């Protein structure tokens, strides 16, 4: 294993480097970047301590790494290592198996001293007035070690930039920061931007598939899953898209995020579409929040149009393009705009590719079949296709909900086919609508929900967008 990259020039890593590498983690033996001899020595010197990996209380168990308590996600293994039959956790097994006979380990040596940077921010952009107001509030919360603050910013408000003053403040105070986000795509997109903004600060990006990273930087960007390996580590925890799947659906993730914070930490939640639990807390005034109702370019959010089509589900099932959709595309104002077409299922994305290609070729929106493709979560070429769409090699992209958030394209129109499907809840529809009109050069963009009958989610999404525009004074 690599010693810490900023360790001293001698061969053996310094104590400080080791403590930066190991403190704040909660790991299985095999995850420790130490040979057996060093590991044993650290144990003897009480620099590392073991802790039970699965706790059993009153007939229920809890995995101490992922928090899993669900009976069906524990199983017995007749273990040939300890020669007894005992529990292991099936929930977090993709990160290495947690077995009852093997403890988790954590660092008990001295805590690292993170550098206090005099002037770490190398970002030269400017914030709008509204962004600045939110950014100042975030920085204030961090400086004052307030427990939590929710930043409710519409899609396209420029939330990353709004974090900069707070991050800068934390770095000046010598604190450790984590920005946790639900998707690896977002870590990959954010990493270069954060590195450019903090050129002299060590920044690391952690996501599944980047597994050999030390995870020892002062500023870490990570998928929420990666937090399962941390404990008592971060003074500032930014949780991006707090309302997004899987954070709100998988109890392991809040469990891990909670444990990864230090006791005097500040947590900043970012969301464009807070869920009920947070809205309730906001209304009861027990969750401090700051609202950013306007996009950075100052234009209103595109309000979706609801477009009914009576045989929609049957048409889609038979890979026929609904009449209403054909009409809309033919009448579309700006055909030069790229088009994102959201569908509720992978199979539909695949089935519609051919008829859509034929249709748009005939309509001359595209000039060759390879200007249109379909993408979904398990697509091995997913990253490449998204990049091609960004580079405008692709003009039309059919997608499942994977592109509902996080990724930004400057100038697109958005169509949702079968918007009444259950996968399109209010938050998803607001996020999807938020893909349009992102660029100051083309801030409008059309958003159309094609449906067979209005759902509450559609109506509420439209209402929520209107309300935000209203609150933004537009």
């Amino acid at each position: 294993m690599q010693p810490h990259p900023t360790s001293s020039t001698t061969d053996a890593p310094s104590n400080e480097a080791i403590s930066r590498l190991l403190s704040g983690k909660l790991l299985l033996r095999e995850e420790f970047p130490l040979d057996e001899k060093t590991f044993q020595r650290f144990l003897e010197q009480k620099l590392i301590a073991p802790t039970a990996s699965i706790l059993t209380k009153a007939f229920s168990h809890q995995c101490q790494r992922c928090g899993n308590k669900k009976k069906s996600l524990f199983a017995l293994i007749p273990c040939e290592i300890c020669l007894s039959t005992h529990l292991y956790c099936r929930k977090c097994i993709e990160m290495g198996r947690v077995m009852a006979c093997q403890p988790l380990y954590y660092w008990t040596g001295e805590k690292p001293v993170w550098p206090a940077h005099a002037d770490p921010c190398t970002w030269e952009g400017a914030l709008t007035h509204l962004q600045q107001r939110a950014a100042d509030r975030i920085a204030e919360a961090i400086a004052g070690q307030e427990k939590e603050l929710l930043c409710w910013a519409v899609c396209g408000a420029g939330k990353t930039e709004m974090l900069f003053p707070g991050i800068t403040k934390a770095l000046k105070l010598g604190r450790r920061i984590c920005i946790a986000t639900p998707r690896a795509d977002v870590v990959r997109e954010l990493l270069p931007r954060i590195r450019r903004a903090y050129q002299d600060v060590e920044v690391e990006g952690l996501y599944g598939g980047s597994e050999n990273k030390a995870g020892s930087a002062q500023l870490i960007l990570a998928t929420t899953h990666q937090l399962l390996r941390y404990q008592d580590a971060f003074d500032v925890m930014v949780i991006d898209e707090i309302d997004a799947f899987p954070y709100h659906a998988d109890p392991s993730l809040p469990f891990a995020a909670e444990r990864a914070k230090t006791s005097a930490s500040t947590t900043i939640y970012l969301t464009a579409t807070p869920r009920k639990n947070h809205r309730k807390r906001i209304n009861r005034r027990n969750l401090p929040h700051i609202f950013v109702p306007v996009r950075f370019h100052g234009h209103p959010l595109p309000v979706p149009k609801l477009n009914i089509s009576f045989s929609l589900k049957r048409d889609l099932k038979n890979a026929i393009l609904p009449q209403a959709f054909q009409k809309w595309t033919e009448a579309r104002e700006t055909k030069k705009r790229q088009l994102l077409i959201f569908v509720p299922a992978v199979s539909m994305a695949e089935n519609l590719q051919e008829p859509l290609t034929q249709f748009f070729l005939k309509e001359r929106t595209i000039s060759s079949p390879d200007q249109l493709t379909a993408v979904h979560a398990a697509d091995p070429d997913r990253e490449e296709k998204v990049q091609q769409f960004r580079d405008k090699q692709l003009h039309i992209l059919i997608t499942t909900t994977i592109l509902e958030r996080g990724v930004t394209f400057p100038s697109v129109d958005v169509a949702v086919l079968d918007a009444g499907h259950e996968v399109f809840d209010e938050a998803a529809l607001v996020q999807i609508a938020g893909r349009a009109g992102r660029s100051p050069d083309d801030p409008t963009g059309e958003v159309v929900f094609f449906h067979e009958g209005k759902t509450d989610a559609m109506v509420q999404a439209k209402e929520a967008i209107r309300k935000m525009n209203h609150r933004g004074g537009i």
Partner: protein
Amino acid sequence: MECLWCQEAIMPEVNWATLVQLSPKRSLCPGCEEEMERIHGKRCPRCSKVGSDAVCRDCSWWEERMPKETLAQNYSVFSYNARMKEMIAKWKYRGDYHLGHAFKQHVKTAFADWNFSEEAIAVPIPLSEERLQERGFNQAKMLASFLPLETEEVLTRLHGEKQSKKTREERILTENPFVLEKALHKPVVLVDDIYTTGTTLRHAGALLHALGCPAVYAFTLIRG
């Protein structure tokens, strides 16, 4: 009851068989069950290769080089499709022991379909000690426990089981990785998770045969 693979709840089927508890409890949901590909129809009578009921080219190749007794036949349960690859990765490499139960009922019925009537001993293909310490269990031993045969762990493995990029001929000529701890004088069914080239099984079979085993067969979960 949740599906062992996708964690979705499995709706209990109610029919006469379940009421009188004749049909075993499902461990996978119908959707995941469907993803697994049981070998049906024509297969090579020697190695279970799917497609034709004539002895396949691989098996003719072996017959010219090894006495038939080193491995009279291999019988496999599943084809190696994408889902099976994922399941094996999780079960064997991630070490999700419990997932092996998803194969149990199939192993039992496939063994019955095989019409194997001899009184034989099941011998699981072992892992090396190093690998066993890593994984915590031997997948072949788990499979053997599903069979209606007595199991004897008479083989040990000398060195790592990672097969190098050698050609098959080179591999057969290289040293036998197994040691036989005890001679068996009854027919033996070797048990392993996957039959790919048959080399590993033939190494084990050759040893057993040389020390007096009258006939060696193999029963494997997957025909790769």
